[in-house]
């Protein structure tokens, strides 16, 4: 403790000499202690190699390789690049290994540091033992957004740190710089330049005391360029095998036997879908809760009969989970309103299933507009005239004409092409024209069947239905809801084209709520 105090004092003096603007104004002891040189290491007590290896099942060879690459204390190293797909334990292994070796390091993730300036400043802050807090106005120790400045500042900060490290014992004279998620830098503004810089940092800096480690989700090939820099040493983390995954998931379980029985059931099907530990663990935790539902005592070790029983309980739940990435659980507090919702759903029709009914409110003109957009995206524009003629779109003339085999084939190919191309785009005028057609048709011939359309003896409704005044507003709110997407730039030129992003299911639902015969208007569907 005393040593820590003293080192804090020395740190302060060095920092105030180096940092230009921000000094700690209030001398009163605040509870947030300022960081010391010890904070550069992992902080907690280091772990043994055995503990490290057992913590990461299936990563034994990678850990040993990595320790070998780092080498003994004070051994300068070439840059190391750790790569492998997501959720294979790259960051954890690197950090825990450094913890095991008890080496000082600086960690920055390009996820959190989303632009060069934050990245540089975050590295410098850690090296300068600076922490953002209210007393310094949450500012960084140095302002730095250019790579060239960064090199200078880094060199300065490093020599300071290494000077202090000399006096501290047992930590060597090396500082390691870990940059995580390097692949994200590619998408930054001027990202390739920053990447070049990071890869060549070792040669530019010319300080063997800094060990650079890059962690990337992409293989090194994507970073190659003509710039001459030292190729980093590579360390590949392959995906976990099924056995590895089993070991990983069994690690922290209270009842290993029960969980292993559970894994027997779920691990194989899910491994075919994904091997990311992160994804699997969220899925498994919810599934395991379901799995345990029939059990009273969670400490029980299951026998064959019980396993079978539990399996049959779980079986129907597995298949839907396989396809699911995003689960929305309904909260118990929400229960009663859901009941109301079901009531409301039944309101529009008692016999239909709940799935087939729209569960949010749209005004009926917005509904017609949605259908019009859907039609405009699916049907070729040339067919509009025949679809929406005065008879209201019942074009049977086309169908009756004899079609030869050859033309049928051609049509099929064209249709497949259309499917591949996705929804087509259309100008606003076409949308409005179709809207007017179907809205008038919907009013005159199908209005009587509709349940939500109400008859209107005064005629006000009929009139205002055809009013186009609010339609443009509706178009924009459909755009906002991502049902329509816009393209084109100049609104004066009128060259904006729209595209309907609505799935056929939703369009059918909407059409059903209006009792609109959508299928009749769809071309070849």
């Amino acid at each position, binding site marked *: 403790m005393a040593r820590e105090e003293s080192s804090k004092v020395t740190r302060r003096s060095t920092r105030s000499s180096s940092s230009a603007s921000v000094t700690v104004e209030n001398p009163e002891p605040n509870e*947030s202690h300022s*960081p010391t040189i010890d*904070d550069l290491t992992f902080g907690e007590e280091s772990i043994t190699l055995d503990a490290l290896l057992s913590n990461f099942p299936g990563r034994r060879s990678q850990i040993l390789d990595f320790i070998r690459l780092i080498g003994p204390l004070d051994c300068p190293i070439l840059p190391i690049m750790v790569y492998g797909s*997501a959720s294979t334990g790259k960051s*954890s292994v690197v*950090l825990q290994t450094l913890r095991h070796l008890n080496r000082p390091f600086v*960690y*920055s*993730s390009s996820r*959190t540091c*989303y*632009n060069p300036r934050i990245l540089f*400043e*975050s590295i410098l802050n850690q090296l300068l033992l600076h922490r*953002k807090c*209210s007393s310094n106005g*949450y*500012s960084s120790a140095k*302002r730095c957004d250019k790579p060239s400045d960064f090199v200078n500042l880094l060199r300065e900060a490093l020599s300071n740190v290494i000077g202090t490290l000399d006096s501290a014992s047992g930590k060597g004279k090396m500082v390691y710089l870990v940059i995580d998620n390097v692949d994200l830098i590619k998408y930054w503004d001027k990202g390739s330049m920053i990447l070049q810089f990071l890869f060549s940092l070792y040669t530019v800096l010319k300080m063997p005391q800094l060990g650079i480690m890059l962690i990337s989700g992409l293989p090194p090939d994507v970073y190659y360029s003509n710039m001459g820099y030292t190729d980093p040493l590579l360390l590949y983390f392959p995906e976990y095998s099924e056995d590895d995954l089993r070991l990983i998931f069994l690690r922290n379980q209270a009842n290993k036997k029960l969980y292993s029985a559970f894994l027997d059931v779920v691990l194989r099907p899910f491994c075919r879908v994904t091997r990311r530990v*992160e*994804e699997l*663990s*969220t899925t498994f935790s919810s599934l395991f809760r379901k799995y345990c539902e029939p059990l009273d005592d969670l400490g029980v070790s299951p026998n064959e009969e019980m396993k079978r029983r539990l399996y049959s309980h779980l079986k129907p739940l597995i298949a839907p989970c396989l396809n699911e*990435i*995003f*689960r*929305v*659980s309904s*909260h118990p*507090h*929400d229960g009663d*309103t*859901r009941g*109301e*919702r079901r009531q409301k759903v039944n309101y529009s029709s008692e016999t239909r299933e709940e799935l087939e009914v729209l569960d*949010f*409110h*749209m*005004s009926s003109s*917005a509904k017609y507009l949605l259908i019009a957009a859907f039609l405009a995206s699916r049907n070729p524009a040339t067919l509009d005239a025949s679809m929406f003629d005065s008879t209201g779109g019942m074009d049977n003339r086309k169908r009756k004409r004899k079609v030869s085999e050859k033309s049928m084939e051609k049509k099929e190919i064209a249709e497949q092409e259309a499917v591949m191309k996705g929804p087509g785009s259309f100008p606003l005028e076409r949308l409005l024209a179709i809207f007017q057609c179907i809205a008038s048709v919907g009013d005159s011939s199908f209005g009587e069947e509709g349940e*939500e359309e*109400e*008859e209107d003896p005064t005629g*006000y*409704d009929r009139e*205002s239905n055809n*009013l*186009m*005044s*609010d339609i*443009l507003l509706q178009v924009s*709110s459909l755009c*906002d*809801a*991502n*049902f329509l997407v816009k393209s084109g730039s100049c609104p004066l*030129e*009128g060259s904006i084209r729209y595209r309907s*992003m609505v799935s056929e299911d*939703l369009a059918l639902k909407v059409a059903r709520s209006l009792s609109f015969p959508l299928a009749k208007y769809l071309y070849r569907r």
Partner: protein
Amino acid sequence: MAPSGTVTDHPPSSTTDSFNSDVTAENDIRPFFVLHKASSGSSLHGKSIGTLKSKRRIESPTPKIAKKSEVESVEEEDGHFFSTLRLKVFETVWSKIEKAIEDVLRDSNSKIFSGIHDWIRESFESIISSGALKLSEAVRSYPVLTQASSKQLFTALVLTRNLEMVDDLLTFEELDLYLKSQGCHVAKLSSMDFSAKSGVGGCLRGLLRQFVMPTVDVADVTILASWYRENKNHENPVVVIVDDTERCCGPVLSDLILILSEWAVKVPIFFIMGVSTAHDAPRKILSVNALQRLCASKFTLSSPAERMDAVLKAVFLKPCSGFTVSYKVALFMKSYFLCQDGTLTSFVRTLKIACLQHFSLEPLSIMLEHFCQDHVNQLSGEDTGLLTEATMKHSFDLPSVTRNKITRSTFEMLPQFLSDLQRMPNPWSIVVLCIYEVGKFDKLRLLDIFCEILDPEAHYLKYFSPSEIVNCQSHNSGRNNVIRRVLRKLRDLSPSQLSSMLKSWENLTAEFSEINDKVMELHPFMRSVEAAGQRQGLPNSPKKHTSRSHSKLEKEVKAMTDKVAAVIEFMLREYMKPVETIPFHEILCFKNVDKLQSALLGDPRGKIQSDLLESHNILHCMCCSQRGTTLLPSMHDTSILYTLAQEHADVINLHDWYQSFKTILISRNSKAKQKSKSSSKSKKRKDICEEPEVPAEALIQARFCRAVMELQIAGLIRMPSKRRPDFVQRVTFGS
């Protein structure tokens, strides 16, 4: 919102005269003149919409005008006094209505809000319980190395169930306040913060601005982490509300979620995302990686239709302000809600416009003030003293009064009728609510019931004749027969439903003894039904035809429903008097649906077109108003061009168009001279029509270009494409 400020209260001068007399020399500058006068021309209309409208209105023989033309100039003082008084009364009435609406909405949300707060508390406890972090741990840059699930962000999807967001902006605002009052750190982001341009930095900056301090140099998550560890901030959860998720830029939101999830253990953040469409909407805009980080729960707000019913109940059926609307207005508002807009906000706005127009059109509307005051039942003498001779006369000219052959015998009659009027809605609304109770079983909406029941010409009692009962069972057409549906549903109700209905009736009618007695008489029948049900053992399933005791039960239920139907008939016969059938209802009831419609649906595009074609109606120049169908060069260029464009199909050849434009401009020379000779009008008019010389070719071209540009800006034509450089395209057709 109808701008209440436009109702200014200048003394109504004799401007009406100048409106009515068309031929004065000043007419040429009338647009400006009238705009001022129109607002001063008494608080007749809430919006100064335009000359055209005000003119039409004033010429129409509304009672107000009839009165106005008769009043002496002495009464102008009174007019001023009354218009300010009416405005004042409007304000009290509207504030009352507004408050009722606010209360209803707050009530409808309170349950969800507390649900969300409980969820936050529970989740926060679970995060805390997994182990507290030391300060040095909590602010360092590398992740806490525990289980992978520690990267999960707790997310509440709040389904607003309306495509439009407007209604729910207020809801999220209130949620913000509510959670803050519960001690959470809350920041509210909107889709504006998630623009692709400013990227993830923009929304982080927004977060830091609300949490930490207004100006941060660099928007960095570590700032948030350090802040959270200071000043005991870490004792409360951090909540981020994104109210319109669908409108956000997907990649940016995904980035924010990924970043925050990296820090999820150090700073426990709760996302509240407002979703206006289906609950899988996040799936469409977020990336897979971001989706996996969300641990989502779903909360559903009450649907717009449910809220609408609650608002209707509070405003029109519970004692609120006394103000009400007529059948046609109600129908219009309903169809506007269902077909056009679908937001409660616009419904409230419609209501406000209606209310304002009522007060500006109806002189007697000041009486509503007394309805507003709950305790004062009688009009006091000094209040009736306010009624001048003219208003009294007006009140006895009201159609509802003349229809009912109430003559103007005494002044004392009026207060009598008014107190009747005040009492009137009470039993009426009780009946409506009773019917709504039954209708609930058939999923009827109060909105439908309300609209139908206002119909002054409806004959409900015909549904009770035996032939009709048979009839309605055989075919179920006629979807707007609420009463018929209610009666039909009544016969399908199970005993338990019947008894719950009876209970709610009892509560509803508690204050009105006449109906309450009838309801109480039903109890013995209910008891026998229950007794029969118990004997049978299965009170809830009247559909099983097995035992004899069952048939007994059925008989009892049948007897019961017949009794209930009889009570409904009684209620309808005695108390179902739509407001429009009552004398003096004009005082309370807004009826002018045309005005409401024109105020609400501006129809700007149609207006632009019709105004261009008939520009003389706006400009009020003498030459054009007599032109008939011919185009005159003195017309506005844009107007000429647009009229010419009507002759073309969807594309217009620029050259032809220009030529015909030029012909019109040039040919005027001879014509105008003839005209000016033949017609002996004022000198001013001549000045306008007789322009100096034939304009030069360049000038014509310039005018042509400007006019075309104006048409383009108005969105009526589209500029030539590269493929056909000499053609413009017409965008709009018909007017």
